[in-house]
């Protein structure tokens, strides 16, 4: 069993499992942190961004000044943002039979995998994953396509040139494999290959089925293990209220689905108590409307608390009420209706959290100059400092409230205790404390045996050996079996059959009937075909009670019998007959001096104490 690790990002995994000629891809996350190296794509012409100076080497060589721009000491690529794809060279992706997608965050690379690799398999995902994943992809494509950029920088990717660049560009990995965003057509084509998986498991996840698994691949844990989501939500609300009370605007860069529902729910409960009832909340995304509506219709996938609301009937999330009461308004873009409705101070939720494309770029440019305004980062996927780099200098307040509800290390340790997997496989980042908190031994996976770690482009041979295979018995063969009870509750039967193996399935079929011996030649051929079916010796079971055995020997005329205890059993000495019977747990030996008659007699005596079948 082998695991091909195509992504090094712990929360955006893309692993391929090869086992018994089956190839399964587990998730296909897309690492978008590469976009942080690019200049933002402004929706409205930004003089500041377009006037940034070109970058030149220390010696004054300015041959890259068209591709690279400098802003407050940082260098950015002035081009359409590109993404770091999962490794494509490690394994022939056309051999992947199945792709299993666990959640919408981990499917953003799907079009890259399904469209240009010769992939012919099937993708499996649940309905909310597909629907919300589609929204995220749609938004991404929309954000990038609506700001067409003529220039495509590629010179800097040259390995020799890259070495000359300042960090972090210099250290960026696999830049040659970075790709531009897919098109909507590719998205549709990729999504058409998905087969929906029905709802069958309880949420929260039923861990019972994971119990005693051979290998547990652990990915997608919290990215901010030191931040407690509840505390962060509180922090978010407090900072939001303080800003708005002082007449400032709040910008929340976010994805169009996920944490935003929780934030809106929390604000729904909070705004009245904080005296913010008159503050407008805007949600701007090309898919804002669909996202808000979709979230209300997947009730069976929500936690129990939310599910029950559907029967009241009440929408599971309270943002419906915020919309009804006009407190929350949503727009596909800041062009159009929004510009006429726009009122300040206000709170704007919009993408993209990388601050490199989407409507958020405009708000950063618009509000960045005033210290009254605040940008609150809630998505943990991007370093907020790096995200803000092309906007420096910035007067706006920045608050970092990462809300990551993925499993933390305490939960993982509980899970491992409960599930007790034989082996744990995880990204290497989880096997040591985070670099910034090297003393926090609690922020790593601690299990026995130690977890096997992987990094990008690594292949792990999983320590998984199958000792048993499941074999089916054909009904007619099963019919012919005659079980014999050897102990109460345990019956045994001998089976003669032909083992048929195909597609990793094993079936025991009845042996072909011996054909009638019609002629010499034919008979010979028939016996060639049929496996050697000579008369089988019966199998024996049971143990020999020494005292009774000795009595039996005496009854049968043996005298002068001596019994010796050995480490493994007994030795019965028939001194007169110069014979030795060695009785052990799993074997009995009769050692006599070439007296076959005596041996057979003794054997039969021994056999009387054993069961045969």
């Amino acid at each position, binding site marked *: 069993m082998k695991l091909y690790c195509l992504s090094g990002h712990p929360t955006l995994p893309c692993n391929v499992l090869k086992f018994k000629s089956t190839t399964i891809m587990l998730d296909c996350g897309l690492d978008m942190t590469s976009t942080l190296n690019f200049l933002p794509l402004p929706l409205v012409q930004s003089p500041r961004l377009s006037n940034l100076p070109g970058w030149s080497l220390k010696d004054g060589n300015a041959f890259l000044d068209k591709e690279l721009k400098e802003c407050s000491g940082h260098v950015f690529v002035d081009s359409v943002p590109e993404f770091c794809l999962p490794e494509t060279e490690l394994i022939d992706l056309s051999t992947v039979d199945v792709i299993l997608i666990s959640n919408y965050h981990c499917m953003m690379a799907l079009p890259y995998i399904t469209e240009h690799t010769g992939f012919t398999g099937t993708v499996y995902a649940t309905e909310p994953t597909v629907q919300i994943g589609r929204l995220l992809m749609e938004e991404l494509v929309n954000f990038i396509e609506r700001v067409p950029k003529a220039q495509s920088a590629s010179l800097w990717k040259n390995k020799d040139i890259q070495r000359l660049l300042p960090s972090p560009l210099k250290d960026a990995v696999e830049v040659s494999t970075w790709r531009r965003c897919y098109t909507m057509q590719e998205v549709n084509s990729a999504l058409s290959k998905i087969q929906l998986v029905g709802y069958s498991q309880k949420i929260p996840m039923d861990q019972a089925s994971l119990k005693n698994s051979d290998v547990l691949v652990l990915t997608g844990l919290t990215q901010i293990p030191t931040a407690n989501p509840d*505390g962060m939500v509180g*922090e978010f*609300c407090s900072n939001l209220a303080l800003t708005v009370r002082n007449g400032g605007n709040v910008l929340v860069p976010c994805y169009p689905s996920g944490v935003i529902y929780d934030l809106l729910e929390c604000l729904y409960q909070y705004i009245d108590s904080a005296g913010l009832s008159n503050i407008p909340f805007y949600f701007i995304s090309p898919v804002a409307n669909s996202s808000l509506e979709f979230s209300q219709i997947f009730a069976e996938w929500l936690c129990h608390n939310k599910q029950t609301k559907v029967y009241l009937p009440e929408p599971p999330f309270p943002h419906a009420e915020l919309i009804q009461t006009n407190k929350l308004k949503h727009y596909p873009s800041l062009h159009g209706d929004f510009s006429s409705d726009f009122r300040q101070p206000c709170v704007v939720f919009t993408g993209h959290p990388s601050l490199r494309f989407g409507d958020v770029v405009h708000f950063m440019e618009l509000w960045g100059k005033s210290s009254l305004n605040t940008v609150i980062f809630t998505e943990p996927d991007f370093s907020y400092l790096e995200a803000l780099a092309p906007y420096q200098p910035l007067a706006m307040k920045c608050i970092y409230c990462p809300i990551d509800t993925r499993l933390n290390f305490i939960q993982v340790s509980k899970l491992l205790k409960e599930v007790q997997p034989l082996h744990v496989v995880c990204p290497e980042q989880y096997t040591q404390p985070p670099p910034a908190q090297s003393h926090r031994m609690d922020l790593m996976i601690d299990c026995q045996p130690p977890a096997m770690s992987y990094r990008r482009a690594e292949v792990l041979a999983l320590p998984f050996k199958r000792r048993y295979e499941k074999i089916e018995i054909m009904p007619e063969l099963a019919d012919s079996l005659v079980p014999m009870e050897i102990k109460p509750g345990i019956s045994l039967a001998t089976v003669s059959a032909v083992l048929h193996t195909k597609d990793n399935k094993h079936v025991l079929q009845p042996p072909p009937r011996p054909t009638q011996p019609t002629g010499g030649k034919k008979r010979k051929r028939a016996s060639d075909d049929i496996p050697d079916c000579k008369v089988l010796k019966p199998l024996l079971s049971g143990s020999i009670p020494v005292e009774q055995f000795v009595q039996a020997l005496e009854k049968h005329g043996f005298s002068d019998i001596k019994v010796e205890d050995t480490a493994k059993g007994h030795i019965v000495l028939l001194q007169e007959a110069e014979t030795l019977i060695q009785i052990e747990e799993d074997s009995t030996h009769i050692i006599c001096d070439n007296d076959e008659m005596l041996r057979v007699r003794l054997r039969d005596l021994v056999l009387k104490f054993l069961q045969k079948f």
Partner: protein
Amino acid sequence: MPPARPDTEYPGGRGHASSGHSLAPSAGSPAFWRDARRALGRVPPSVPAKIRQVARPGAGPEAAEGRGAGISSLIMDPECSQLLPALCSVLADPRQPVADDTCLEKLLDWFKTITEAGSSLLLLQENPCLLGLLCHVLKPQDLSPRVLSFSLRLAGMLAAQEDCFQYLQQGELLPRLFGEAGPLGGAAWTAPSVRSGWIQGLRSLARHPSALCFLADCGAVDTIFSLQGDSSLFVASAAGQLLVHILGLSLQGPAEGHPGLQTGDWPVCAQKIVSHIEESLRSAATPQITQALNVLTTTFGHCHDPWTQVLWGRLSPLVACLLEKDPVPAAHSLVDLLLSVARSPVLSSSSSGLWETLAQTLSHLSPTQAGPLALGILKLQECPQVLRAQAFAVLLQPLTCVLEATAQAPGLLDSLDGTGGASVTVDTLLPSKAACVGLLCRTLAHLELLQPLPQRPSPWPQAPLLGATVTILRLCSGSATPTSDAGGHLCAFLVGCVRVQRAALDFLGTLSQGTGPRELVTQVFAVLLEYLTSPDSSPTVLKKAFQATFRWLQSSPETPGCSDLDPHAHLFLRELLPVLPKRLCSPCWEVRDSGLEFLTQMIGRWGGQAGFRRALLASEVPELTEQLLRDPESYVRASAVAAMGQLSSQGLRVTPASPEHPGGQQKSLLAELLHILSTDSEGFPRRAVMHVFTQWLRDGHADVAGDTERFVARVLQVASQDLDWEVRAQGLELALVFLEQTLGRPSSHCPYAVTPPVAAPPSSLAQALRPLCRVQLFEFAFRALFDCDRPVAQKSCDLLLFLRAQTASYGGPQGSGSVPEVASVEAALQRWQAGDQGQPLGYLEPEVVVAVLRSMDLEGLRGALAESSDRVEKSPQSLLQDVLATVGALGEDEADCY
């Protein structure tokens, strides 16, 4: 059915009561049982018995001596006597549903009062139905365990008096109830309540030497031994207590005054118990050892007679043997016993090996078990210094480990590192999170208890304790950097642990009583700020952090010359004030609330100081506080009211952009608070407003001083209509302040003093009372006088009595009836008293008020109010009626069904 016999024919009946037991029928006589049986079915006597204020005619001479002969006591009032037979037959009827446990408990309480006050024998003779009930429960029948338990306890209570005991013995009732033939052998014994009743019955019964013989005869002691291990904890514990009691009783007479007596000379009963304890102490089974230790602990805790010394002398070697086992069995009980011995004046002074045993125990027990022992030793008034030092070292060990794990300066360690036990502690701290957290929390709690005690160890290691507490807090927040593997583990256990955080913050607050080196105090403020800032601090942790912060700020040295905060604390405040607004905006109401409480405390303490005022006014805090007056959570509104009251008193309320709102267009705080008082749906904010108003009136707040009468009139008017009695009571408090200010003004006389003020002419009295009349204070007070909530009525009564005393010397109009208005006011008050409070009194002239006050029986009213309001409901008669009524109602249902 045999004809009813006259009362006098009951054994030892009324006519024979005073002549002693010799006249009573012999034990087990047929007449005894027949009468007892008949008593159950008896019809209540038609003629009620007289109230018996008797001088206990039935009590024997020794009983009379014991309780004070000739004391009159109310045996049982006739109404109850009349109801009792019916009650007994209800209880004896298995078909009747038994009243709930609490009723039976109340009945027993009542019987206890009766038997304690008078003769039980007389009680039995007067109420033969009781005897009937006791006999009846012995019959094999399907009687509820509750009733059986009740009867056992009742029998024991009655037999506590020796004459009554003898009387019951004649019918052999007691052996039948408590002996082998009783419930002990029957199916009813499986009910824990019956076993408990059996024990409690014996516990009451065992008061006199005859009882001891009885216990020995019926073999009760062996049963008690076995009940010590009963599956019901209540039964097991009661059995232990009973053993202690019997032991004490049996040694009371003979052993007293003979400290040198050998246990071999002790009464048989006592010897039996002691042997049993010895046997248990030698046992290999921990539960048995625990039982023995508990019996000894209770014995030494309650009894300091010389014989306890003999007992301890005999048993202490066995107890010491327990220490040789590994692990020490029943460690918790052993600690209790040793502390009990050490606290006993008789034992601690005499037993030579005690301190050695304690020292040995300290070193043998695990750190978790040794903690309580160490604390107990340190709390002892007298104890060898060496042992105290050892105990303190044990207590400090976990903190030493913490300091070691984070490699604090070795200087800190020296004073904490007492013994070499630290490695043991590390072993306890590190294997599991639960053990680590538990030990640290207990240690911190123990030290917190110890800190304020006069006998705490000296020198008190303030600096290392501060260092360790700060380190623990930093480990909990993840900001400490451990330097060893042990430290790493500790960090992993403690990160985010709310329990330890709370315990450590509490202890840190307590440590503010002492001083510390400058850099440590800096660390204290730093860690407090870290907690106050961190978004991960839970609401309870934040509250504790606020409390600790206030205590530390309070204890920080004041700048010489002025009482302002010292520069150090000031710096801290500058960092804290930006945090506070965020806390006041928290979505969690508990956080907003504790933030406001902290603010109120701070303003109360430093509101007058320039530096603090500047810092506060520069922050957003005052504005936010005002906004929180409209918080959806009532507790927060209440705290905001208190904080705003303080802010306003100190002149710190911000009137935003006052040039833009000339002439006070901005709603005044007074108006805002009045609005809360009249409209808020919850009681807490309204109570808070009343407190603020009272304080404002007392302090002469500017908003109030302008037109005090208008203010008081308005507040009293609103408060009088409030549904919350505390608001009304606080209204009376405010009225009293106003009263003091109005009447007390001519002289600086203390309003509470009994001596009347210097006499003033009547005209000036009227003048003085007029403002009170104008604000309708009397209408408010009179209404409160008839308030349905007693505290309000009491307070009003006190206020009016005070007022009457003030006006007594003034003379005033002669004769209350002379003014026609007085009669009409009195009539109105009568209507009010009757519950019709609709009609207002309107404006009253001072003369009328004085006249009404004089005509009222305020003292009588005060007396009536002083009695508890449930005195009627609590009467035994009402209890009996309740029990019967319940059954009666059910009985009717039964009739309907069939």
